[in-house]
């Protein structure tokens, strides 16, 4: 049996409301709330980045896994906001967790699906008996250009998953990936903010790939939507995952626990993994979960998990996603937000 031994998430405490961003740019906040189904988003503190978020999420995963960190043979961090252009995030994370030096480390990048890429490879290494445990993390301090629609959603957070063959809390039964070359969203080397193709990011990108991966894994596994208690689809806004879920035959009750985007925003590589983590927080033994990510460029990874009895032993050993989302919030105005996100030109 291969699956998740421990899982954990981390979300910053700072928030900005959709209304505050809309006010800054003369946009209609009601229209944004209704159109994108977003209320507020997380904002990283000045001293937080993908590395610090990854460490905190992984520490929560280790609390639940209850294993010796030195038994972890691989650390993979998926993000599109790695703090260094050259120097891995994973080395800092592994050093902070006490996993070095006998460990394989790599950073992944594939827009919003870098986290599930890391999960896919970690799972594969365990399945191939290459190591006892492998740690996969999806985390981001997402970028969105000032005044762009992305600014309402681009947020910060991440989740970590330790894969192994013992002490499983969720068995991974099936995987499936669906990928094409689709130029829907990109950021060139050295560019501060990403660009996107507007409506082109919808049907030819998000919907095509999530539907491709979703239908593919259902066919491969012989399962149907009604076999799952929960499903999580990548959450660039509130509306897309509900729409794609409906197209695949899932109802709102199946999506609800993992549909955290109205309060979290889009944490890019940490988006669907954190929705999955929030779902594990409430899942019961024997329940089936479908997870489908989406990364622009473009591709989707799909996973079928079956929750085991150990979930009841571990879920309270670390802070749950909903608790992080709904408590200890500190709201920022746009000026503070601009300072936190480095959008103000300063002297050296």
């Amino acid at each position: 049996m291969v699956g998740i031994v421990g899982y954990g998430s981390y979300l910053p405490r700072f928030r900005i409301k959709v209304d505050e961003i809309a006010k800054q740019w003369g946009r209609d906040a009601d229209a944004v709330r209704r159109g994108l189904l977003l209320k507020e988003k997380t904002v990283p503190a000045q001293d937080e980045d993908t590395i610090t978020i990854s460490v905190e999420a992984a520490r929560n995963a280790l609390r639940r896994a209850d294993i010796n960190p030195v038994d972890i043979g691989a650390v993979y961090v998926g993000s599109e906001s790695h703090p260094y252009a050259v120097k891995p995030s994973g080395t800092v994370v592994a050093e902070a967790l006490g996993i070095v030096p006998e460990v394989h480390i790599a950073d992944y990048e594939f827009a919003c699906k870098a986290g599930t890429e890391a999960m896919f490879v970690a799972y594969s290494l365990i399945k191939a008996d290459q190591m006892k445990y492998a740690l996969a993390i999806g985390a981001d301090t997402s970028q969105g250009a000032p005044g762009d629609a992305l600014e309402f959603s681009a947020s910060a957070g991440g989740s970590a998953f330790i894969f192994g063959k013992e002490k499983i809390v969720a068995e991974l039964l099936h995987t499936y990936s669906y990928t094409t070359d689709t130029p829907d969203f990109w950021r060139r080397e050295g560019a501060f903010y990403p660009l996107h193709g507007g409506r082109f990011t919808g049907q030819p990108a998000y919907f095509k790939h999530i539907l491709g991966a979703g239908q593919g894994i259902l066919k491969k596994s012989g399962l149907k939507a009604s076999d799952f208690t929960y499903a999580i689809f990548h959450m660039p806004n509130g509306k897309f995952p509900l729409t794609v879920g409906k197209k695949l035959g899932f109802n709102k009750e199946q999506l609800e626990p993992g549909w955290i985007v109205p309060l979290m925003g889009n944490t890019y590589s940490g988006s669907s993994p954190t929705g999955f983590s929030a779902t594990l927080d409430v899942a019961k033994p024997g329940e089936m979960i479908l997870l489908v990510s989406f990364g622009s460029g473009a591709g989707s990874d799909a996973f079928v998990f079956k929750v085991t009895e150990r979930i009841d032993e571990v879920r309270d050993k670390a802070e749950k996603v909903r608790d992080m989302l709904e408590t200890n919030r500190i709201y920022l105005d746009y000026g503070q937000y601009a300072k936190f996100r480095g959008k103000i030109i300063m002297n050296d």
Partner: protein
Amino acid sequence: MPSPRYHREMPQRYRLEAGKCNTCGHVAFPPRMVCNCGCRDFKDERVSDFGKILTFTTIRVAPKDFETQVPYSVAIVESDNGVRVTTQVVDCRPEDIKIGKKVKFVFRKMYTEGHTGIICYGYKAVLV
């Protein structure tokens, strides 16, 4: 901070590794070569993840690398296993901090060496 010194201090800055004297039992953080009792024999001891605030002060005129963070607080925290650590307390307003409040150690950026230098990470505390 020069890269070699930053690298040397990673065990204490990243993982809160302290040294416990094998003669008198004193826990030194950051770790040191010689104990107050004269002993040079230490074993590794980790500062626990949680603690409480013993005392604190609030910085309103900060050194250059911390100017954008004012006002911020620096506290002496006693960990649950009795080690005293001087640390910044973040993600709160200074008026939220009180002596005796419980905190958790977290992994954060300490500062960056300008726009092109290394990013230095370490421990800070948040209220729980």
